[in-house]
């Protein structure tokens, strides 16, 4: 008996050590980037900056916000996240509500059309041709429209609506409420937790995306996004170390180095997420579980 307890004790201790180790290797890169972003760029080049800045300065951040590209990028990223999340959430909710109405005549058709999108997609080239034909090249709406609704989100939300008591909606109908009123006044408020989850998913996807800028909007400087600009700096730094391709002139200002600028942007890009997700944690864990069970 004692032997067993000893073994379990050992297991618990190594478990804690392992978890602390996991926490460290997850956090270290972020803390390191934070330290570099707050450290003098000339000093950083000497190396050896780990968790704390050695020569503290705000210069790198100041520098970041003097590049017109990065300021535009920040504005567009912010705008696409706001518009994309708002419209995406509303659209997802409307589709999910309609296909949750059991008596709706076209329910099966609409459901099938959205389910199928989860399994088959046209692929890169046909989508590119479509965007071009629709005149969405170098257009802000290319950030919003093609990915407006994800089938997965629709079905998670519908699964949640299905768990609401039917009697609520029926009694509202008896009171003469129209479908629109039921949707806005009853269903939406009751779905708040799952809507928060979906909003988080959409917002993070919008905030983090760079490929659509790269492929559809690289011809228009006014539509650049923060992630895309960061990608360009990153590619520059990589190729500088592997000695080929681009030059780093554009960002090679005397007061700072690409590395410090990159660190500062990384922090600017990461902070908004850091401020939001821990508070939504209990919601998204539930949402994710619900989605997995239903699919």
């Amino acid at each position, binding site marked *: 008996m004692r032997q067993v307890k000893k073994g379990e004790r050992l297991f618990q201790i190594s478990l804690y050590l392992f978890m602390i180790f996991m926490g460290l290797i997850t956090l270290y890169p972020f803390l390191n980037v934070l330290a570099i972003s707050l450290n003098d760029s000339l000093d950083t080049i000497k190396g050896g900056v780990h968790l704390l800045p050695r020569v503290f300065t705000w210069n790198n951040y100041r520098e970041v916000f003097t590049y017109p590209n990065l300021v535009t990028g920040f504005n567009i990223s912010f705008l696409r996240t706001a518009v994309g999340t708002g419209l995406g959430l509303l659209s997802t909710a409307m589709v999910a509500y309609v296909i949750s109405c059991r008596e709706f005549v076209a329910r099966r058709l609409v459901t099938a059309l959205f389910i199928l999108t989860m399994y088959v997609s046209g692929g890169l080239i046909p989508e590119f041709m479509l965007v071009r034909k629709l005149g969405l090249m170098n257009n802000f709406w290319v950030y919003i429209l093609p990915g407006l609704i994800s089938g997965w989100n629709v079905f998670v939300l519908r699964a949640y609506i299905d768990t609401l008591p039917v009697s609520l909606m029926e009694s509202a109908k008896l009171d003469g409420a129209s479908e629109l009123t039921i949707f806005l006044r009853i269903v939406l408020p009751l779905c708040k937790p799952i809507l928060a989850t979906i909003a988080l998913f959409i917002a993070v996807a919008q905030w983090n995306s760079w490929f659509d800028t790269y492929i559809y909007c690289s011809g228009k400087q006014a539509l650049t996004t923060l992630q895309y600009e960061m990608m360009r700096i990153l590619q520059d730094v990589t190729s500088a170390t592997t000695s080929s391709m681009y030059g780093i002139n554009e960002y090679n200002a005397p007061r700072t180095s690409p590395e410090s600028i990159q660190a500062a942007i990384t922090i600017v890009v990461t902070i908004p997420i850091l401020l939001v997700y821990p508070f939504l*944690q209990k919601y998204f864990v539930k949402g994710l579980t619900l989605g997995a069970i239903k699919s």
Partner: protein
Amino acid sequence: MSRTGEESGQLNYCFEKQQKYKRYFQRLYRQRYLFLMVLPFLVWVIVFKYIPIWGWTMAFQDYKPHFSFLEQTWVGFKYFIELFHDRQFYLVLRNTLVMSLLSLLCGYTFPIIFAIFINEIRHKFFQKTIQTISYLPHFVSWVVVAGIFTKLLAIGGPINQLLLELGLLKEPVLFMAKGEYFWGIVTVADLWKELGWNSIIFLAAIVSIDENLYEAAQMDGANRFRQIWHVTLPGIRMVVFIMLIMSIGNLINIGFERQFLLQNNLVKDYSEVLDLYALTYGIRVARYAYGTAVGIFKSVVSIILLLVANTVVKRFNDGTAVL
């Protein structure tokens, strides 16, 4: 007598049919708001999801962007044959399959183990903190993750420093410039980013296991390890199967973000995946038909994989399919 009866029956039938239509239209009218609500999104789904699938026809034509559909020349399987004769294609296919198998092996087993470990932690606050930290990288973009890994693996970066100090290396290694390391780097980066996130579902499944089962196992004298083996693992079997099928279906759809962001010219032979190949030929070189053929190949393979995985699991799961 009989004749009039028949007639009136027919009349009745017509009347009933009319009534039925009337009721149907009344129902449609009553549901007009629902139709109005869903109409814009029907248009959306057809335009943005189904027109691209119709675009698959491009792969069977000598597609020229400025001609209408009827004016295109049909060429049958020409581009598919060309694709299967391209040596580069097999290299790219190998890279895609190797990287997705690696990420399936690691990105699937480690989250299960991680979830079990998290569940074993008794201290609630510590447990919550570790969970919150482990979800963080999931929310960060691949651009950021690629930046972090490039820096970690640079000549003067922490990994090189550590290995030098431990005496495992004699001189710093340019990890990012060596093709043979690329698959490993992508897999580790992916694991680092998604480990915590992918464990959420398994953890939820573990938490929902009936507490009595553990008590019964304890009564029978099972220690913690035996409880994990005999209660926890069988308890999450269903979720494990579902996740396995879904990941096998997506085996070939590993995307290209990681590869695009982590690669450079020196490791192209190891980093190029199907999507990047389609991107290069389809858009940069403007061979739209060829690029589309690559996309179709991918879709067909992933549907076949999904069906095969479902059948295999059905075999192992006492005849019940998961999908």
